[in-house]
């Protein structure tokens, strides 16, 4: 892992990335190298450090020690450049329900500094790509969960970022909506060459969507690999659930705290 982390040309390259909250070390000396164009999954139980890691990589949270480069820029020295090259969909629902889909997109276009002449075209394209053209003028609070997630993806892709970060993108969605989000993510990679980094604790999602995954356990990377390889490594007939149970600490460990649980349920309720 360390040798690859030092080589050039990675979309995300973390070195000894660490974050402590008081006595708790949420992310503990993580090295990670994600090649451009990959759909990469960060797996782990609640409290394994996925969200903290993603917050650091998206410049929302400063690391306690270590560093990372995202899109070729240092997250500590050039956070603004990093922000210009990434798109982010938080686990929470970030689209504004009191605005229409179009207004949400327009705000993003302006904050990302898209020239006025290009805004209309890009917004139209993003709406079309996500299948939301007909609902663009409706208030987002009338959208279904899957539509909201697709709108958030549209917002995140508007400025054509090199890397998309998605924190639990399909949590709380029904199977149909979940598959439609997966399809859009694959299309984004195919049509725009975007690198996609998702966090999930859904093994089906990891298997179906990700080229490569890292399983986090107690703030460390327990293993990195392609899902079929990880299964094979564990033995014939092993499923991703088995892989997860093996590397996430001998069985599905109970993780996360009260606020974690509240947050997840709130998101699920709003999407449902």
């Amino acid at each position, binding site marked *: 892992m360390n040798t690859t982390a030092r080589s050039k040309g990675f979309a995300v390259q973390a070195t000894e990335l660490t974050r402590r909250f008081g006595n708790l070390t949420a992310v503990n000396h993580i090295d990670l190298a994600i090649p451009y164009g990959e759909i990469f999954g960060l797996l782990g139980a609640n409290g394994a450090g996925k969200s903290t890691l993603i917050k650091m990589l998206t410049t929302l949270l400063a690391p306690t020690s270590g560093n990372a480069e995202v899109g070729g820029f240092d997250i500590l020295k050039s956070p603004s450049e990093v922000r210009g090259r990434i798109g982010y969909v938080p686990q929470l629902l970030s689209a*504004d329900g009191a605005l229409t889909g179009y207004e949400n997109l327009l705000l993003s276009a302006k904050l990302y500094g898209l020239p006025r002449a290009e805004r209309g075209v890009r917004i139209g394209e993003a709406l079309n790509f996500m299948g939301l053209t007909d609902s663009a003028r409706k208030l987002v609070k009338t959208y279904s969960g899957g539509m909201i997630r697709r709108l958030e993806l549209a917002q995140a892709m508007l400025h054509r970022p090199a890397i998309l970060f998605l924190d639990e993108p399909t949590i709380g969605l029904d199977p149909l909506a979940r598959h439609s989000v997966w399809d859009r993510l694959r299309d984004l990679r195919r049509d725009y060459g975007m690198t996609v980094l998702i966090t999930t604790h859904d093994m089906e999602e990891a298997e179906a969507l990700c080229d490569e995954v890292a399983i986090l356990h107690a703030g460390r990377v327990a293993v990195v690999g392609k899902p079929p390889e990880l299964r094979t490594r564990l033995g014939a007939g092993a499923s991703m659930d088995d892989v997860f149970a093996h590397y996430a600490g001998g069985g599905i460990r109970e993780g996360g705290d009260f606020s974690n649980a509240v947050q997840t349920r709130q998101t699920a309720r709003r999407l449902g």
Partner: protein
Amino acid sequence: MDRFLRESAAVAEVELIKLVRDPTEIFSRAVQPVLWLVVFGQVLAHVHGIYTGEVGYLAFITPGILAQSVLFSAIFYGIAVIWERDLGVVHKLLVSPARRSSLVFGKAVSAGFRGLVQAAVIYLLALVMHITIRQEPHAIFGVLAGVLLGSALFSTFSLIIACIVKTRERFMGIGQLLTMPMFFASNAIYPLDLMPGWLRTVAQINPLTYLVDALRGLMIVGGESVHGYAVDFTVLLVVFVVLVMVAVRLYPTLVE
């Protein structure tokens, strides 16, 4: 600078769209000033308990009540910020390359426009109650500028509290704790001269006092700004700039 203004305008614009679409909050906030003027003001004016010079008591407190409603509606602005944090809107704003200063300033400007609605309500009320209001355009413009600045100042103060306490429950407690003392330790409903020395000292460092002072001179016939407009507006502007600088540092900590 151009980019700063563009980003701030984008943030302020969506807030205004939301306000126009659902103005319930603005109108519910207008109830309180009505009570203060129609009930409290009229009773106290009747007993002549507080000496306010040439200007009648009701006229005296009208700018004070406007400043109060600016303070009260701006100070709870932090609740909306915490709500946005809980929804994930703040995360998304902070991951964009927009400057933190634009995000904070844009929010302050939108709060300023909320204040203008309060001003409109008070002007209407004053007309109905036959309070003698200055009608020269420059005086009205001055009042609106003061209200805009005061709302922006107190909403930024509120944003700072939100960044520190981070939960709605704690915010509600602190919001209640701050508003009443700030209101009573100001010249909103009685002149500074009537206060005991210690209270006058507190009032002199309370930005609300300078807002009331400016509004009192600009809004009512015969009213006077004790400190002078230059001092009033300078104090408000300096406090606002300092608060924006603090808020720019604290706003990103909301999502940590």
